Structure formats: C-alpha cells, structure tokens
C-alpha cells in the first residue's frame, strides 16, 4: 500500500515537473482553446480556404513571460484578439532562456498554430526551430530580431541604430559632452541591445571625442539585481564614471538605485530603455535622467496584424500601413519593417504613461 502511494506521489511530481515549467496560465488556456479549435479546423480546412471569416490561431512568444514589458505586450495581443476575433494568445518562458523558448515553439508547432510571432532571446538559437515551423507552413513574424533568416517578416518599432544613437545624444548633453561612460546590454546575444549600443558608441566616437567608453557592454541578464551590482562595481573601478546607457528594462532602474545609494545622484547620469512603472520612482528622484521605450502592446498588436495580412495573402510592400500609431508608414528593408514608434520619458512627462 505504502509503495503504491509513494509511486503515485512520484508520478504526480513528475507530472508537475513536465507541465509547469515554461507555461503558466496561458498554456492551460491555449490547451483548451486548441481542442475546441481543432474540431473547428477540421470543418473549415476541407472547405473553402479563402473564406474571409476564417479565424486564425496566432501565438506570441516573448523572451520571458512575467515582466512588466511583456505583460504590456500581452495586453496588446489580447486587444488584437478582441478586436479581430482571431485566436491570439501569448505564451513565454518563465525565465529568459533560449532553450526554454525553443521548447515552447516546438510545442506550438505540435499544436498546429497558423502563425507564430516571436521576440527572440537569442536569434541564433531560434533559427532551426523557426525553420521547422516555416517548413510546416506556419507564418513566422519576429520583433527585435532584424537578423533572423527563417522568418516571413520582422517588424521593428524603429530603426535600432537611430534609437541607440538618440540615447547617446541625450547622454552626451547630460554629461556636458565629456567624461567616462559605460554601457549595459541584457545579453551579448541580444541582437537589438547590441545594435543600440554599437550605434551609440559609434556616434560618440564621431561626434563627442571627449567622452570615453570605459566598460563596454556589461551583461545584466535582464535582471535588475545584476545591473545594480555591476553598476556599484563599475563606479568603484572607474570613480570618474559620469554616464551609463542601459538596454534591458532593469538596467536603468538597477543602475539608478546603485547611484542613489552611493550618493551620486546628479553626478552620474543614466539613460536607457525601461518603463515608467519600473523606473518611475528613479525618474522622480533624479537618479535616472531619461528612459525611452516603445509601447510593447502596440508592437504585439502590430506583429499579429502583420501575421494575419500574410496569412490572408495581402500585398506586403514598402510603406505598409497597419493602422496603429507609429506603424502607419513602415519602411521595408529586406524582410524587415521599420516603424517610427519610440517615446522618450523624463520626470516632466512621466505621468502620461501608466505602464
């Protein structure tokens, strides 16, 4: 009896192990929707394929599923589902890990979704699985990954070089165009982060020769605590450091907390990508000077919209209008669309954004 009971427990534990990682609530949701959907699909797939009422199943896969940034993206995905009636949902890994993302996409392929929109953690790691998806006829749209090969289209909120360089313009102004500075990226394999920072460094070398890069591309692993600890260390190793440019969402607030605690507010300036809900208190206290972002909800909406247009076989060309602010006149370069959707926030206008 006892043996049987313990066997049962082991089975239960193994089940939780298999089911839980990588999928929270949304996975369960997608499972039930998948069942109802597949019966529906059987009916339609044999019938008229060009029927305009066809509802597609579109999955959005973020880098990681539980940070404010991708929560906001999920709002956009849900809004899209509500507006259009398509079965659109978001499912992402519990922590930022390329292997977990691959695993989720494998699952989605097995679930026979019509389209996958993805924000890759590591572009190289995703190529094989995205190729597999496309071979199965799944439309793949990516975001923050202009170098991906195995996609239909990539959509970027803006030209990364221009976005990265605009941070440097602000940082240079704050630093009086001279002094030492450092840059953070979420990971050395995060494509966009590196493009922003590369463009910023290039601009600095051309335009602000008195500024000096002392620590290039510190990795924060998209973790605020790491950004915080590395900032403290940077400030000890380089006491004359005057500026920090962050890339991941926790970089700017992590750096700002370190600066605030070390009593260097106003002496060291911080700019970077973040959200008001995360970095707001540091904007207010002055330890973080400026944050920039693009609305992830709109990006999520735009990816799904583009996926549907591809699925419906609409003409896709330069100047495409998705009907979303900032994505009305998209510039096409190879497979990559560029919008004009960035927002700068300082202490003055931070109250206009509630996410």
């Amino acid at each position: 009896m006892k043996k049987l009971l313990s066997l049962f427990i082991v089975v239960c534990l193994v089940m939780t192990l298999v089911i839980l990682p990588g999928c929270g609530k949304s996975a369960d949701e997608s499972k039930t929707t998948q069942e109802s959907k597949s019966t529906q699909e059987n009916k339609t797939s044999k019938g008229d394929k060009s029927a305009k009422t066809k509802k597609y199943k579109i999955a959005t896969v973020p880098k990681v599923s539980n940070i404010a940034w991708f929560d906001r993206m999920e709002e956009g995905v849900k809004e899209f589902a509500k507006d259009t009636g398509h079965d659109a949902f978001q499912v992402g890994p519990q922590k930022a890990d390329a292997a977990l993302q691959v695993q989720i996409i494998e699952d989605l392929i097995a679930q026979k979704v019509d389209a996958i929109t993805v924000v890759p953690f590591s572009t190289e790691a995703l190529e094989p699985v995205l190729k597999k998806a496309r071979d199965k006829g799944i439309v793949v749209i990516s975001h923050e990954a202009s170098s991906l090969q195995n996609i239909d289209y990539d959509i970027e909120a803006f030209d990364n070089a221009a976005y990265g360089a605009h941070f440097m313009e602000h940082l240079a102004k704050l630093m009086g165009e001279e002094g030492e500075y450092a840059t953070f990226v979420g990971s050395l394999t995060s494509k966009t982060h590196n493009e922003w920072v590369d463009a910023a460094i290039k601009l600095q070398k051309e335009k602000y020769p008195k500024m000096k890069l002392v620590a290039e591309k510190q990795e924060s692993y998209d973790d605020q605590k790491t950004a915080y600890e590395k900032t403290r260390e940077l400030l000890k190793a380089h006491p004359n450091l005057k500026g920090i440019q962050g890339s991941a969402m926790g970089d700017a607030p992590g750096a700002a907390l370190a600066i605030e605690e070390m009593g260097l507010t106003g002496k060291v300036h911080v700019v970077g990508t973040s959200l008001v809900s995360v970095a707001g208190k540091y904007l207010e206290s002055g330890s973080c000077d400026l944050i920039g972002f693009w609305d992830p909800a709109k990006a999520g909406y735009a990816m799904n919209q583009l996926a549907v247009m591809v699925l419906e076989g609409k003409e896709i060309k330069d100047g495409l209008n998705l009907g979303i602010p900032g994505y009305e006149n998209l510039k096409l370069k190879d497979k990559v669309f560029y919008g004009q959707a960035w927002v700068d926030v300082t202490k003055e206008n931070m109250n206009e954004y509630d996410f």
Partner: protein
Amino acid sequence: MKKILSTNEFLVALIIIVLSIIIGSKNSVFFTAGNLIDLLRSGIVMGIFAIGVLIVIVSGGIDVSFTAIASFCMYTTTKVLNYYDFQGSVLIAFVLAGAMGLILGLINATFISFFKLPTLIVTLGTASMYSGFLLAFVGVREISNLPAGMSKFAKMNILKVTSENGVVSSLHFSILILIAVVIITWLLLRYTMLGRGIYAIGGDRVAAERAGFNITAIQFFIYGFVGLLSGIAGIVHTTLMRNSNPVNLLGMELIVIAAVVLGGARITGGHGTVLGTLLGLFLVIIMNNSLILLGVPSYWQRLVIGILILIGTGATAYRTMRSSRQLHRNSVG
C-alpha cells in the same frame, strides 16, 4: 597546529587570501572599506540561504526548492500587504513570510519523511509546484512600490562609509539578521542533541535510528527551518532591491549549493561547518563581484567564473579525497 593547517576551512581561507591579493594588486579599490561593505551586502541573502542549505546537506539531503519558497513568500507577502495598504512595521512582513516559508518547508518534509522519497526529487517537484502556483494564482508582474514598512526598512543602514571622492557605501541592517541566523545555527549544530542528530542522520541513517534519534522529527525540523529561513531571505532580498519580482531569485540555488560545497560540506552528508560555509560563500561572492574591478571584459566573465568555481571545488574535493584515503590507511595500519 598541523590539524588547523589541514582543515578544509584553512584551505578555503588560503584561496580567499591569494585571490584577494591578486585582485588587490590589480586594483587597489578592492581593499577599501566601501568595497568590503559591498561584498558583505551582496552576501546577505545568499548567506541566509547557504546556512539553510548547509543543514540539509549535513543531514545527507539536498534542497533545490529554497529559492522557489523565498520567491513565493516575498511576492505573496508584498502583494497581500499592498492589497490591504498596510502601513505598519516590517516585522509583520517577516512574520508573514516566515510563517509561509515554514509551511512550505513542512510540505517538503512530509513528502521526504513519510513517503521516504529522495530529497532531490521531492524538492525539484515542489520547487516547480510552488513557483507555478505563484505565477498562476498570485501574480506575475513585478511590484516596484513596496508597502510602507518595507520601504522604510530598505533605508535602514547600520554603517555608512564615505570615500574620498564622495561615494557612499552603506551596510544594511539585515546583516544583523544574517549574523543572528549564523550564531543560532552554529549553537544548534555544535551544542544541542538536535544538532548531533542532524550529523548522525547524514553520517549513517540506520545507525542514527538505532542510536535512538527520532528521524521523522529531525527531518521535519530541518526542512521547516530551511523554509523559515527562505521566507526571511526573500523579504530581505525584496527590501534590498526595493522591488519584488516573482522569478529573479530562481536559478540562484546552484551557486548557493556550490558555495556550501566549496566550504567543505560533503554532498554525501555528515560533514560541514558553519565557518566553512561562510568562507565558501565569501569566495563565491568575491569571484562574482570582482571581475569588473579586474577589468575582465564581459565576453570573458562567464568563462572566468566557471574556471574559478572548478578550481575551488576541485581543490577541496581533492583534499577530501586525500584525507579520507589517509583515514583509511590509518585505520588499517
């Protein structure tokens, strides 16, 4: 004298000194009071975890669920207190998180003790369960605005050092929590029958049982204690970062276990000291927090950390192997 020289603690301390001298000679900032305070500060949360892990490892088990328990306790506590707009003392937060941790720890103990399942399997399973439950039912969004009592606690420092260029380094109050935990655990392991029992189970379970130790009770104590410590560590982590994130502690468990093993606790159980654990922890923290001071480019940092851990654990493991061989030879001869 020879006895002291051949202890594991001495070896780890030696590695720390050598490493410190190397880093210090490259960058003199390493030896400033400010840097020392920063190192201590980044060791607070890991330190509380490490003490819990030490007890488990001494008893011959292994626990990988403590970060999940800590995340669960700190996030739920923050959320509940925010919901009621709680304005009172941080003590309530500690009590709440500690109680939750204790309960989750006792759940672990139930599986381990009554069903006699391997500790690794149980804690792997429960870790996944706890964090899955947290993300599915409590919430996923990080909380940046902490309850009043916790934000006040976040600014409580016991020591402030201002360097010549105006940089302030402050030692947070929670270091006292770590010190208290260390002293209590040290007394427990060294001077109580319960402590003897923990070593006895790790050394030889059957012998311990025959010697009259109540194994079930001891195991309930061990995993309950670890749960309690994890809950407290969770709140400390949240207040130090002034932000409650339900996942960013996850993944820390391996480095903590590595620190404890570096400090001479044997994964097979029965061996391990509080002092050794603290030294092992300090070594890991120095490795983790000095690569920028050394000027190691970020492309190389992961590689260097891996190499240092390998050398560190390799050295202690080699020493353990040699000493056990010697023991064998002595007992034969």
